[in-house]
Every structure is written in structure tokens, then in C-alpha cells.
């Protein structure tokens, strides 16, 4: 089945959320709070959790936009509520290998009260459509710590399958966990739309 889209199809708008650019004035304060949430930071990636002040977040945003400009293989979006444009989280496509059509994806909903409302699922749906139709990628991957069952469920629901298990690659609180790589191919994404 062809993807039913035309020039009027809004790429960045869902029912609950929209994908939007960074708001350099307002966002740093919110993201700074998220970086103080150890659980969130440990779910998101494997790096040691480290809180950032609003000024540091601002610098990070500037570095991201510089990277976008120079590397041409990164797309970064904030996730905002349709209702009031409130910042909910962020998502990015990174390490895009243009000649191979392969890319990586990451997504986070920052405030615990905003989780479980379907914001992440919808953002993921929009991002997959963007990656496969607008960017014409062939495959997408994501890495998820074994202990992040919410993300594993979210990605599985969107059609990602487990591809790699880096055994014991994570050490948290004296315990070893695997780092799981999940992936989805273009044709798998298309088949699910049918």
C-alpha cells in the first residue's frame, strides 16, 4: 500500500503533540530540571548522569544546532503539546549514513507526569514517517538499556525488533545489564501501515 500523503499532509503535527524547533529562551529551564532526574537520565542513555544548569543546557542547544549545520546527519526536534505548546520532550535522528540510508533515533519525555499519555508513541510515529518518507531512509535503529522496559515496549509497539544484545555493556548500581539495539526496516514500517 502506498503511504497516503500529499503536499498538505502535516509532517510535524499529530493529534496530541507536535514536533517543533528548540525554543532557546524557554526550554533550557525545563530541560535543566530533567537532567537532575537520575532515573530519567539513566533510562535515556548509558552515559553517567550529570545535571546541567539552564546555561549549560543553552550551550548544549547551540552545540546541537552547530552540529546540525556542519555534519548534515542530525535532525533534532522538541516534542510539544498541541494544546498549549508546552515542552514535553525531545527526539532526534542521528548518525545518518546517507549513502546507506541508515540512521539512529532517540526520544525522551522529560517530566514523569507527562509519561503514559501516548505522547511518546505519537512522536515516534511522526518521526518514523518523517524518516522513511521525507528523508527516504532504509532503516532506523535505537539503543535501549535492558532495564528500560517502557522504551522497549514503546519501540516494539512501533514495529522495531531486537537486533543486537551487547551483553553486560552497562554497569549500574553494581549490576550488569545488556544494551539492546532494536531496528526497523522501511518495508517493515510500510507493511504495518497496510
Amino acid at each position, binding site marked *: 500500500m502506498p503511504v497516503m500523503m500529499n503536499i498538505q499532509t502535516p509532517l510535524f503535527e499529530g493529534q496530541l503533540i507536535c514536533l517543533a524547533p528548540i525554543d532557546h529562551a524557554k526550554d533550557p529551564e525545563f530541560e535543566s530540571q530533567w537532567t537532575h532526574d537520575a532515573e530519567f537520565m539513566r533510562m535515556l542513555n*548509558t*552515559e*553517567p548522569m550529570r545535571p546541567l544548569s539552564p546555561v549549560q543546557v543553552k550551550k548544549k542547544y547551540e552545540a546541537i544546532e552547530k552540529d546540525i549545520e556542519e555534519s548534515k546527519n542530525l535532525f533534532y526536534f522538541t516534542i510539544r503539546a498541541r494544546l498549549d505548546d508546552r515542552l514535553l520532550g525531545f527526539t532526534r535522528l542521528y548518525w545518518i*549514513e546517507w*549513502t*546507506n*540510508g*541508515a540512521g539512529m533515533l532517540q526520544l525522551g519525555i522529560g517530566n514523569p507526569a507527562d509519561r503514559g499519555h501516548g505522547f511518546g508513541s505519537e512522536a515516534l510515529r511522526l518521526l518514523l514517517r518523517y524518516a522513511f518518507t521525507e528523508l527516504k531512509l*532504509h*532503516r532506523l*535503529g535505537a539503543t535501549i538499556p535492558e532495564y528500560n522496559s517502557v522504551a522497549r515496549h514503546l519501540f516494539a509497539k512501533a514495529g522495531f525488533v*531486537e*537486533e*543486537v*544484545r*551487547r*551483553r*553486560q*555493556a*552497562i*554497569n549500574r548500581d553494581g549490576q*550488569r545489564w545488556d544494551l539492546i*539495539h532494536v*531496528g526497523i*526496516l522501511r518495508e517493515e514500517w510500510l507493511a504495518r501501515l497496510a
Partner: protein
Amino acid sequence: MNNELLTGDLVRLTAEDPQIVAETFSRWGRDSEYWRLLAADPARLHSARATREWLEKEMDNQRSSLYLFSICTLEDDSLVGQIGLDGVVWSHGESFVGVSLGERQNWGKGYGTDAMRILLHYAFSELNLQRVSLTVFEYNSRAIRSYEKVGFKVEGRVRQFLNRDGRRWDMIFMGILREEWHNHALKDVEQ
């Protein structure tokens, strides 16, 4: 103590001047197959000067996470390859490893396997890592055999990652844990 930490049966690992490393990388890269076995981005040519700049920047950026060695033969001390831990993550005790042998007459002689044995020993008993990872393209069966020989196990496949010569190829992830390396090294001694 072990003064032979960086010496194997066929090769030893050394530190060469960036200029020499850059010149060899630049020369080896003129063989497109070398590049396509090594990297996922399009094969292209790099001058020694550009390579040196890239190398010095990498060494600067990754001061505490990049361990790059040149591979020299014990027979006549000629420089045949490069091997390195790239991106050591100290908090989890993990690193990726990459190895390449530049000239075709040096392929298939066991230099890479020997260099990898030395490097694993260094990674586990000097850096005290918990695991070492690598990625290899599905069409590089010579490398896969070599990695299996030193104890790496396949941990999964990034499906259809590469698009080359009109078809799709997987990128294979391999890994070796500290305990596995230890058991494997013991077995080697017994044999």
C-alpha cells in the same frame, strides 16, 4: 610483571609518530577495498596532511578514550597495520576495537589475529575493562574468522545496514567478556 605486554608471536604493538601513521593510512586508503572493509561511509581519498590533522584532532578530543597502536612484524619491524581501542567508556568498562592491515601481501598471515590477542590482553589486564565490542561487515569473512579465533562472539546483526555494489549487507556486532577472554586465553596456553 610482564614486560612483553605488547609483544605477540608474530607482531608487536608500537607508538609511531602521527606523521608516519598518517602517511600509511593515506597510502593504504588508495586501495578502495581496504576502505570498504573498514568503513561504512563512501570510499574516498585523503592526503597525508588531512589524515594527520584528523588524527591529531581525534587524539586531542579523545585524550583518555583512544588507544591507537601501530602493528609491526617481529621479523623485520615493518609497519603492517593499525589497531586501537576507540571510545573507552570507563564508567561501564567497555570499548570498541578496530583493526586494519594495509597491504594485500600482509593479509591472511595471522598478523591481525595476533595483534588482536595482544590488544585484548592489554584491554582486560591493563585497562581492566569488562568487555570489548566491535562491528564488522557481513562480507568481511576473513575478519569474522579472525575475531572468532580470539574469542569474540556474535551478539547480533544490524540488518541491511550497508548498501554496496547493488545489494544490502548486515553489520555484525561481536563482543567478548572479560571471563570469556580469560577462559579462552587459558585454553590457548593448554593447547
